[in-house]
């Protein structure tokens, strides 16, 4: 049995310890927002936060996250209770096929958690691990910079989502 925290709740799994966290989260716990794109830490579609850092979970054996706190896109915000990045993402029409976007948003949230006012070069660097085959890069960058500019008093993104009662159309600050 391996136990860890998933979006604030303690969970246990008897999946074999070498199973990548991505598949445990998707198939054992049914959270489908995190995606499989490459299975080799090359595309970022599977990005989650592990103890606050953005990690590629397609190559992370579940045994390695025992006792750790995992946040997925579902834990970052929901359609009823959007994280500010998600709100701006939707407003600015960032997604095309959408398949990469959970990973993009998780990487962006980790970036803003560490660096609330990134430069364009900071954004390029932090986001270079996330592929968007549809080529939404200009919009992803703009959305991140918009959130950074609007967040006058930034704090850790996860806490923001958890404490917020914002509805669609409102944003979490």
């Amino acid at each position, binding site marked *: 049995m391996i136990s860890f925290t998933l979006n604030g709740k303690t969970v246990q799994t008897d999946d*074999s310890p070498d199973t*990548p966290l991505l598949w445990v989260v998707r198939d054992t716990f049914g959270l489908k927002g995190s995606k499989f794109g*490459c299975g080799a830490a090359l595309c970022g579609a599977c990005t989650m936060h592990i103890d606050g850092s953005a990690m590629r979970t397609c190559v992370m054996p579940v045994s390695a996250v025992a006792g750790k706190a995992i946040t997925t896109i579902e834990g970052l915000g929901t*359609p009823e209770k959007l994280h500010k990045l998600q709100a701006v993402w939707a407003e600015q029409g960032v997604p095309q*096929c*959408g*398949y990469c976007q959970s990973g993009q948003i998780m990487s962006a949230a980790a970036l803003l958690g560490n660096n609330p006012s990134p430069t364009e070069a900071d954004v390029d660097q932090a986001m270079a691990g996330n592929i968007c*085959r549809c080529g939404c890069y200009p919009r992803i960058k703009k959305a991140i910079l918009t959130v950074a500019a609007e967040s006058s008093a930034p704090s850790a993104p996860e806490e923001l989502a958890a404490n917020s009662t914002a509805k669609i159309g409102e944003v979490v600050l």
Partner: protein
Amino acid sequence: MSISRRTFLKTAGIAGGGLIIGVVLTRGDGPALPIKKINGALQANAFIQVTPDNVVRFYLPRDEMGQGAIMGLATLVAEELDVHPAQLDIEFAGVHPDYNNPDFGVQGTGGSTSIKAHYRPLREAAATVREVLLSAAAQDLGVARTDLSIADGHVVHSRESYPYGQFTATAATLELPETVALKPKAEFKYIGADIARVDALAKSTGTAVYGIDVDLPGMHYAVVQRCPVAGGTVKRVATQAALAMPGVTDVLQIENGVAVVAERYWQAHSAAKKLEVEWLLPELLSGVDTKTVEADYQQALISSKADESKAEGDLDAGFAAAVKTVQSEFWTPYLAHAPLEPMNAVVSIEDDHAEVWSGTQGPQITQGLVARYAGVPKENVRVHGVYLGGGFGRRGYVNYVAEATQVARAANKPIKLIWSREDDMRHGVYRPASLMQIKAGVSEDGKISAWHATRVGANLIGGTMNMALPGILPTAVPKGVTNFAASTVDSIMDGWAIDHVSVEGLEGDYDFDNMRVDHITKDHGVPTTYWRSVGHSFTAFAKETMIDELAQQAGVNEVEFRINNTQRSPRIQNVIRRAGAALAALGEVEGRSVGFAAHGSFNSYVAQAAEVSVSNGQIKVHRVVCVVDCGQVINPDIVKGQMEGAIMFGLTAALHGNVDIEKGAIKQSNFHDYPILRMDEAPVVDVIIIDSDEDPTGVGEPGLPPIAPAVANAVYKATGQRLRSLPLKLA
């Protein structure tokens, strides 16, 4: 649907107050629509359902793969019904002839056709619903039809407004009008407005459902080992080691490989590695390397007879009139589509019924293939719509559905088949490689006096038919026959007719008075299919690099040269002019060079200027100005997004994209050796959309073709090197 078609409303009185179920059949004997049956709803056609509680439901007939068809088509419906697109309840349509793509005659999504093909039919369908609701309201309210109007999902009479749902029961009993008036452009409220995509919220919260996200009770996972060389089959397989792995329930042979079925994906994935398979390799392809292909194409240019695709004027006279003549050859490689969602399918078979969930650009072919491999009647196969995690042509070729169905049938379990990225890279269908030769002349007045283009390579039709025919033809036609038919289509074409997409784009845009376009078919057996912008994805590179060379030879500025040679094509000329002006406005940036290209495709016209720097042999694209004329714009922000996306997709091909063949197998395997453009390489993109009253045309693909030549032309200015092969590599 077209209003004049023989449609009729079948109504049935249901006990309990004469509730009505409206069901439209295409013909009297046609299949029932795969829609929700709602008591008292108005279902005047296959697309729009209005319920008594005022839900306006839109059955989206095209697949949503990121290109924004969901938004564009919803906007057309929204406009004629005066319901905000975000207020529509949108469902993916199942398979039914009424949902056929009017441009294709089958149910499929591609060719940048969704908006173009539906612009009028879908508005007519919505306008019909509007008209019959108004007639019903007039009758129910006892007022004159002319005193009624509509606004925001309501019928309005003087100061009162009534939800549409109030009139659906009456409306369902009325005859549909034969003809309807469409809203004039001056009254457009949603068409042409920047409204956020209706799918953006779901796609920003991880709640949009893709094929890979679908789970069924009792579902097992399948992973397939395939022959490294396409077309190979299993000779011998040792299954014991795989069968002994935890969670594994079945190891099965299917047409093209061996499937491992397990309770969990990772179990199936791990066990598949334990299979020891000996393959029967296909003879032709297993001897093929990229180098063989290139050499064969070169040889074909010299010694093979070409088929003429198009000829006009007098080529010899054109060359005689030339003061400068240029001849160049261009190479473009095989490419993979690599949509970010790897191929997958969920299939469930129960008795003589089957269901499938899978991202596909061809739901009708999908239905047929499931029927064939499940051994059930086509009409008993339910195809569920899901979002596609990218398509780009790849998802029109549904070999993954064929595989999943074979496994589900043999294992007798609901199956989710997932391809790994390596599977996707190595067992896909590819944009064919091409060798193009262009010989052209310029006369004294700077006009292109002669243009002779030849393309050598494989066609697309054969490979595509290989998958499509078994899906489309009746299941009674055996697989062997459909294979034969597909190969016949291909070989009949050779030497007799040109598969137009193989040469499309080599003949157009400019005033070619004396021209010929030829094709030499050389097929080494690499599976090929449509890839975003199809033939234009390679022909524009050759054509627009050549135009640049000609301008240079003529000593004329490249924008001026293009304007001078597009006198007969005002729409391409206009985008060239606009992009030229935008370019001039940009001004010169120290250390950067600007290259230019223009290309018309899918009835749209695009010109691009790319600002590029070169240092240490590295090409960096800083900024792209893109001017597009796609007729009437439905949603400017989506047009802009498609231009941005196509430019990034095209830059991946221009700077990185290459699939190598080694002994018939694909060498590349994942994003480390098939790199996709990343954010730190992405240029700033400025999009200018031409205001137009022409009917709308495609935007998913036309933004792609000009970018590679625009960058190559910039690199020439920066370095003096003419790069005539993709991906661009400096010497």
